[in-house]
């Protein structure tokens, strides 16, 4: 996979996507141009190098970000915790992706989250604002006001009919989800799928009013990140989502287009609360999988592994 940064024409891409979908439906690993295409890139190493490598392995950032496009990055910066708590995405991972997007010609990169704690504290203590400070065209914003959200319908929603989503996510073509791997007291783990809740206005009702696992799946039918990059450089294996809790260090970056595959693989990395689990055992992932949002069984996922 040395020269994986191949140029892909739109037509070729569509063909490939169609073929890929067909093959996926047939339950077989997908191939492009006779070469294997991987569902997941699992890269071990330091945050920056591993993130770069993961992007390369997924076909390069330019596969997802075209010149002049605006990109929304969704890290988890919901808590005013420093990176060592592992409750938030590593700032170096976010900055690396942001820089790659700019290098690929993105007109603008918005790093967005609807934080759970006071916005300025989250931006400050997670280190994400600082890490992106010197990247021109990159803006780190915590949106805490309803006016920055817009309501959309969820046609395939089982329990949610509509949801208010950050406008930029709806107006922009490219969404890259950059969750951190952590435990969650309500949903078992909080990774890419659960992280989508950071893009909506009313999170509380997910907990109090609805079945949260169904609600996440509903959300997954309307918010579809083009790429998910799971920051498993550290994993908060207990005490999540806010911490404090036990932090393990898998030193991994996992990238993939299939959000369920990424999360599902993430589940297997470490024991959560001292127990080993599979993706199928995480209710919101299983529900999402059953709703057709992605692959959940690791033995059916084509994984590229490398150490940098």
């Amino acid at each position, binding site marked *: 996979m040395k020269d994986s940064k191949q140029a892909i024409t739109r037509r070729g891409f569509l063909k490939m996507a169609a073929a890929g979908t067909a093959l996926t439906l047939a339950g077989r690993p997908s191939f492009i141009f006779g070469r294997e295409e991987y569902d997941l890139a699992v890269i071990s190493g330091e945050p920056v190098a591993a993130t770069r490598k993961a992007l390369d392995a997924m076909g390069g950032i330019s596969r997802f970000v075209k010149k002049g496009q605006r990109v929304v990055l969704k890290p988890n910066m919901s808590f005013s915790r420093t990176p060592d708590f592992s409750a938030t995405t590593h700032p170096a991972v976010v900055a690396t992706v942001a820089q790659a997007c700019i290098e690929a010609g993105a007109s603008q990169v918005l790093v967005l989250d609807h934080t759970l704690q006071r916005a300025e504290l989250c931006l400050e203590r997670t280190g994400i604002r600082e890490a992106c400070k010197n990247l021109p065209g990159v803006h780190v914003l915590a949106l805490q*006001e309803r006016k920055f959200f817009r309501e959309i319908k969820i046609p395939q929603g089982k329990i949610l009919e509509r949801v208010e989503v950050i406008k930029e996510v709806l107006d922009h073509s490219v969404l890259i989800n950059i969750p951190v791997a952590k435990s969650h*007291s309500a949903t078992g*783990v909080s990774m890419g799928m659960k992280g989508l809740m950071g893009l909506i206005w009313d999170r509380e009702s997910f907990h109090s009013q609805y079945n949260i696992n169904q609600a996440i799946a509903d959300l997954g039918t309307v918010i579809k990140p083009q790429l998910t990059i799971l920051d498993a450089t550290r994993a908060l294996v207990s005490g999540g989502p806010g911490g404090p809790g036990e932090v393990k260090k898998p030193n991994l970056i996992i990238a993939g287009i299939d959000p369920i595959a990424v999360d599902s693989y993430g589940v297997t990395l470490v024991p959560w609360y001292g*127990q080993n689990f599979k993706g199928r055992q995480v209710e919101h992932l299983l529900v999402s999988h059953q709703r057709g949002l992605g692959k959940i069984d690791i033995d059916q996922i084509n994984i590229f592994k490398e150490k940098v």
Partner: protein
Amino acid sequence: MRTLIQTLSLLLFSTLFVFATYKLPNWLPADIYLRLDPLLGMNAIFAAREIIGRALWALITIGVTLVIGRFFCAYVCPMGTSIDFLDFLFFHKKKRPGLKAEPSLRKAKYFLLILFIAAALTGLSLAFLMDPMSLLTRFYTFFIYPLAITLINLFLDLLRPLSQALGWVTLSHLHYFQSVYYMTAITLVIFGGIIVLNRLVPRFWCRYLCPLGAFLSLISPLGLFKRRVSEDCNECLKCQKACPMGAVAEDPRGTHLAECIQCRTCAKVCPQNAITFPASLSLGGEYSKIDFSRRGFLYSLAGGLGIGFLATQAPFTLKQSKHQLIRPPGAIPETEFLRTCIRCGECMKSCLTNTLQPCLWESGFSGLWTPKMDPRLAPCDQNCNVCGKVCPTQAIRSVTLDEKTHAKVGTAILRKEMCLVWAQNKICLICDEICPYNAIVFRPIEGYRRPVVIASKCNGCGFCEQRCPVKGESAIVVIPEGEIRLKEGSYVKEAKRLQLEFKPDPGDDKYILEESGFKIEDKKKEKENILPGEKPQPKKPKGFL
């Protein structure tokens, strides 16, 4: 010249006020104006019956006033500046009726001063009612500041289409946190009243009411600079009319020295240029005397002592710790706190989360405007210790973040009848999710996982109460039970002594999983639980199948 200095002083006051936030650098004394106020200092020292370090800054003001005179009112006082400015805006063209009872009214401020000092001696902090620094800071906090934020946000909203069109990403997403306070209206009415009084005479407040001005005027006749009128005076009385303080005597050559604030307005208006302010060591002759009757003195003294006595008796005081009142972390013990707090509102302004709110009657008459936490509105953030930093009398101690974390303000309790999990078997664990100290854990009780509070890990920060999704009152509330109020010494040590730990304990969740938590429930069931297939319910953490 004077206007310039005044404006600069008001600007400095406002700037320091703006700086009094979470980001306040340690070296910057944002509360310096309040520290410099000798009335507040005396009030706190007398009421608390001990020396308060920060209040000693007021000695500077006293010293300079002794040397120069009552310059403070004309040049430094931001309240005086506000009055002058608003006076110019609203009333400068109006003919003012003046007051007949002028000389006796002048005494009012001295009576008030004596009353406040007397009340302070009984242990009742009362000067805040009329001290200009406290009053103005309060007005800024409860009115100007929230209003300014509203206006700025409104402006940003209006600007938003433009900033979006121009691609100014940060600006088009800018929105400032809107603080809200109880008692905004009351504070506005008081300040408004002070301004409206100017309709009668200029600087009505400063002439007749200001107890700080009264104190400064008592020591000002010793000052170096005094008004002197030369032989050229033609008795046109222009100076008498122009003097904002009414300090020019019947005979325009004479000066009520105690009232003169050295603004030099008289020198400016004098057509003969007959008025100068040379340095002189004389005591100013007949007009320097402050006309102050013995009877008035005794009355106000008795009044102050009486109020002080009454206010500390029921029904004007509420029984301490018998009602819901959460003080900010680091607040000294309640009795001392009430005596020391000068109700400036600086802590509430600086509060990062807006949880600090003024009391109305929650702690009785003696607790008006004192800060309390309102956890349902907002929690206390564990990364912020600014309220102590800006407290000019250290009624809230300035402590490090670690110390502040251990300054327990109360304990959360679950109201099971309201809790969605306890009462309705719903899946809700927002309190557990948000708790920064893992003080809320889920334990299997009668086959269900139920949230419980571990009191020894809860420092009362209030995140749970604020986030509880139950409508109306929270199902988990912070009560003052277990609060640590220390006048001195380390909160960390005290917390250790009480075997409290406000720290992550990642093992706790694990404990539930592996031990199933039945240990505390019923020791006999423990064995059954280990049997495979028995009671699988609590075996797995939430969200896993």
